[in-house]
Every structure is written in C-alpha cells, then in structure tokens.
C-alpha cells in the first residue's frame, strides 16, 4: 500500500483508503465515483507541485497533490 503520489504516470492502482482526505474533497470524489475499491489510473501530473489527473471508469478527475498524498492505493 502506497500513497497515490508514489504512482508513476500511466500506472493503474486500486484505492484502499480515503479516510485521511479532507471531508469536502472526499464528498466530491465519492460523487464522481472515486471510492475505496475503485480502480484508477494516474494520467498526468502538473509541474511544481501542481495537481494530479486520475482516471476512473472513463471519467477523469483532477485533484491536488497534497490530497493525493493522503490517498492510499495498491498498485495493480
């Protein structure tokens, strides 16, 4: 189990733990179907500590790096 920030671009992983993410962000992620157990793929990262773009079931979502740091995933 590693933080999402450890993934390489293009790598797929399963989300294991979302509990450390702030409430508002977590609500939004749940809304978009990014839940514990969901399979995601890291699509790209922005420079200088910028946001991450992940894909889940054909849906792309952008989140900040420090939120991604709090998401625990299991690489597939």
């Amino acid at each position, binding site marked *: 189990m590693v933080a999402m920030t450890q993934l390489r671009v293009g790598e797929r992983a399963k989300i294991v733990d979302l509990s450390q993410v702030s409430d508002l962000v977590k609500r*939004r992620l749940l809304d978009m179907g990014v839940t514990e157990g969901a399979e995601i793929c890291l699509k*790209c990262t*922005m420079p200088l*500590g910028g946001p991450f*773009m992940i894909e889940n079931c054909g849906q792309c979502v952008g*989140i900040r790096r420090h939120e991604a740091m709090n998401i625990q995933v299991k690489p597939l």
Partner: protein
Amino acid sequence: MMHIALVGNPNTGKTSLFNQLTGTYEYVGNWSGVTVEKKVGVLRSKKAKMIDLPGVYSLHPLSRDERVVTQFLLTESFDKILNIVDASQLERNLLLTVQLLEFGKPLAIALNMVDVAERRGIFIDQTKLAEALRVPVVPVIARTGKGCDEVERTLLEKVAEQTELFTLFYGEAMERAIERFIASWGTEEQFPVRWLAIQFYEGNSYVRDYVAEKWPEATWRSLYEQAEKEVQHAEQMSLAQFIYEKRRSFVKEVIQQVVQRTEIGQVTLTDRIDAVVTNKYIGIPLFLLAMYILFQLTFDWLGAPLSDLLDAFFAGPLTDSVTALLEAIGASEFIRALVVDGVIAGVGGVLVFVPQIFILFFFISFLEDSGYMARVALVMDRLMEAVGLNGKAFIPLIIGFGCNVPGVMAARTIEQPRERLVTTLLTPLMSCSARLPVYALFVGAFFAAHQAIVVLSLYVLGISLALILAKLFSLTILKEETSVFVVELPPYRMPQWQALWRSTWDKGKGFVKKAGTFIFGGSVAIWLLSYVGPHGVNVNMDDSFLAMIGGILAPLLAPLGFGTWQAGAALLTGFLAKEVVVSTMNIIYHVPDVESLQGLMATHFTPLSAFSFMVFVLLYVPCLATVATIYKETGSRKWTMFSIGYALVLAYIVSFVIYQVGGLFGF
C-alpha cells in the same frame, strides 16, 4: 400548465435536451457547472413548461449552484421530473436517480449520450432498466435531437403518479431511525417524509436547515445522534457513508442486470489529446499560446480588417444616404444633427467593433464546447493555489474576457464561499469585449505600429492585478479558509458548427442589443447635453452642460494625464457600459469616422496619457450590468460597494503611477 423539472448530474446534456424540447437557446458547454440558475421554457407543443436546473451529483448541496436544485425541489411546486442520465457513466448517475425516486414525484429517465456509451463498448438494456427502477426510460442523443420526440410523448402520456413509493431498504438500524423521524415529524409535506428523513440523516445541509426551522435544535440533534450511534454500532460506518454504500450496492446490482460491456482496447481520442494538452511541460505554454492566438485573431489578423470595412461603410455610404434621406424629407437641422452627429456617431462608433467581438465570442464558445475549459482549470491550479484560489476560479476569469456578467455568474460553482467571493470581486478586472472599442480607438491613434502588443499588455495587466489582489485578499479577508480543488474533466467533443454559432450569437447579441437600446439612448442624451448649455441651445460645445459636468472631474484626473472635461464626461458615461466611452468621444469630437477622431485626439492626449486612460478604463468600475450581477450574487450591499470602491482606487493608483513614472522616463 404542467411543470416538468430537468434534473441530472453535471454535464450530462440537460440544457442540450432542454433546448431541443423547447426550441430555445440556453447556455451549453462541455464542462461541469455551465448552468448555474433555474431556467424556464415551454415545450414546442405548448403542452408543458420545462425547468432547466444546474447539474448535481447528489441532493446534498456543496456549492451555490447545487443549492438551487435542492431549494427548487423543497420549495417550488412542479409536477414531474425528467431525470437525465449519462449512459456512459451509469453508476454515479443512478446514485442521484435513487434519491429522486425516493422523492416520489412522477419521473421518467432520459438515457442520454448513448452514442458516447456505445463508442466505449457500453450497451444498456433500456427495458430491463425500466423494469428495475419501475419508471419509463427513453434513450436519446440530446446533441442531435434523436429520441427527443419520444421523450416528450413519454413525459406527457406515460409518466403517472407512482402507485407505490420507491423504497430502498437501508437495514434494520437505519430503518428504525427513519421510523422515529417520521413519527415525530407529523405534518404532511408535498414530498414523502421518508425522503426528508433519509436526507436529514445523510447530513444534507439544506434539509437540516429546513428541519431546524420546525424543530428546536435539541430535538433534531438527539434524533441524529441516536441514529449515528446505532448505525455505527451495527454497521461500523458513519451514517452518511452507510447511506451512500447502501445506495451504491443497489445501483451496482441494477447495473449488473442491465449493462453489457465489450472491452474496447483502443486509446481514445481524449487520451491522445490530453497527452499533449495536459502534458507536464507543454501544458502551460500551450495554454498561453492558445490565448495569444485567440487574441491575435480577434484583434489583429481577422478582426481589425473587418472592423475597418464596417467603419468605412458607416462613415461613407451610410452617413451620406441618411443625410440625403433627411434632406429629401425636409428634416430640420436639429434632427439632422441629432441623427448624424448623435446617433450614427454614437451607435455606429460602437457597432463597428461587432466583427471583433463576434470573433472573440466565437473562440470563447469553442473553448467552452470542446472540453478544454476544465483542462485550463487543471493546468492553472498551481498558480491559482499560490494566490489562495483554485483552478476552477480561472473559468469565470476566462468567460469574463467575453463579458463580465456571465463570468461573475460562473463563480457560483466554486465550493468555498470565500473563494467564490474573491473570484466574484476580481472577475470585473478581466478586460471584457466592451472595453475593446476603447482600446481600438486609442491604439489606432497613438500606437499604430504596436497595436497588438499594447492591447495585449492591458489584458495581461488585468490578469496580473487580479492575481496580486487575490493574494492580498486571501491574506486578509479570507485567511481562515483552506481552498479546495476537485475538477471533473469531460471527454473532448468536436463542437458542432451550428451549436458554436448559436452560442456565439447568444453572447454577441447582447452587444448588438445594447447598441440598439442604451447606447442609442445614451448617445441621444449625451448629444443633447453637448448641444444645450446654460446659455441656450446649439452652443459651442465647451459651453455645454456636458462640458460643465465633465469639468468637475477634470482637475481630479489631471495627475493621471487626462484632465480634460472630455475625458471626465466620457468616463462618467462609461459606467453605463464601457463602450459608451467611445460613443461619447465620437460625439464630443464630432467627427464622421474613427480615423478622423483619432487624428483629433492627438491634440488632447499624448501616447503616455492615452495609455494611462486605457488603463483607467480597464480598471475603474465594473459596468452597471456587472454591478447589478455582483449584488445579486453576493446579496450584500457592502461587497457591491467594495467592488466599485476598490476598482476606483486601484485604477487611480495604477494610472497615476504609469503617468508619473512614465513622465520621468520622458515618454
């Protein structure tokens, strides 16, 4: 007449369907949060009213546009719901459908984007879906209009009161809590109290306020805490999470019955474009390049030649033929002067910029409809984070380049109230299309060789000041709040020509309409003020009322480099709409066309004071329509006054510095 509400997830094509069904045009774009307020229209057959609403993921609102939907459901009377479901994202869409079914209103599902789903290898059995949810389901493609007739027929004929309420079983502990709520509530509502109970336990803030209006805090709090304790004990999950999980497992079951997937291994077009557009290294440069091209096309390559043609037409053939016509019908000299020197000079002076403004709007529409807008939010987030905002705040700013009013409205989708407020306050610093005529007039006269670069510097100045002020505001008025950023990135879609044109026209027509209404009225009024003075009519303009009014401001403006009554009068009228500055100048300097006006102005301005004047016009106050919108959005007189006040101060300081420092360097 029957009222039908359109409810669904963001960016699923609600407004597209609304436009198809009603034959009107409302704002469509390929990102989440295009529609931010309720819009009403009538079906083509005139048999029912449709209500288009903002997109929501769930009925528990986080942002202001989402609140509109919950508020609508709870407080307004309507008859049926048309739930738009994105076939390519069935799971998250059905989570909302469950909540709507629990709400108990007659409901039909329009299964939209079936074309997208098919391309991804997702096939949905609509009959099975209809059976599983016990409501009519109609597949449609809102973009092309396929299936829309069927939707209308279903809505009018097949959707009936549900005989028994859709009930999802939430497990023993939760059901007991629901029972307790219903028993204590007592009164009848327009909707099932069960729905209210579930939403209440889920933590829906709007519903909680609704409940708190009836019950003292102790009552609802103890109900909530008891439920929380029991569910936590029985299921080891928080209430909200448990309710979410229950819904999700129901939805998963449904999906299992109705969806067939075939694996399509190919890389999608969206993936390929994103590999470039959101690339770590070229993402930001690419965005800047796109903005530069947009700007050059609007201002230089395409827009300027077209405007020149139009100007030549107004100054030559139009003025000549109108003069001839007026002479032929024997109009008085007064009427001739009013029409030619007032109306044609004032309104025509603004209308010549129609080509540039339409080109600008065309490109903004293209950005909106292609799906690039959400990527801009992603790419710019790091910069925005540095100034205390988030990437989503960039969308209102870009829309603000077209017109500040929809820009301010677009700030609604930002979740954090303070960030939303700051974005609302700063959007007016974006150089909107109405300021373009002013720049065009001045750069033509003073910076003929460097037109584009001078105008570009004004745009950049607007954004830079907005970012600096955002930082300043976030260190002072919004310091206690952390900013939040989650953005949905839709697949790219090739905009259709027809849709692009509709959208461009919809934005641009405001400009034309303004020219026909209060720029027309303003021109007449200004001309009259310049024609009449304390000592009679047809006075020398320097003795007119207009000169007197403008003269009051002149000494104040002198340190900025333009202390003339003409500049004072033009700025005063520019509060109505910024392009009126040009109308006023045209009338005051009393010239047949833009070219000779530019020649004349050279005697009143130097290049430095002209630049200082443009900066002042860029910053000094939001126009009347924008101020009204800021008031509507913030609901606060204080913040509205603040938006005017800080802009005036900022404009004064920046122009002052430019003129004085520029003077030192001998410009």
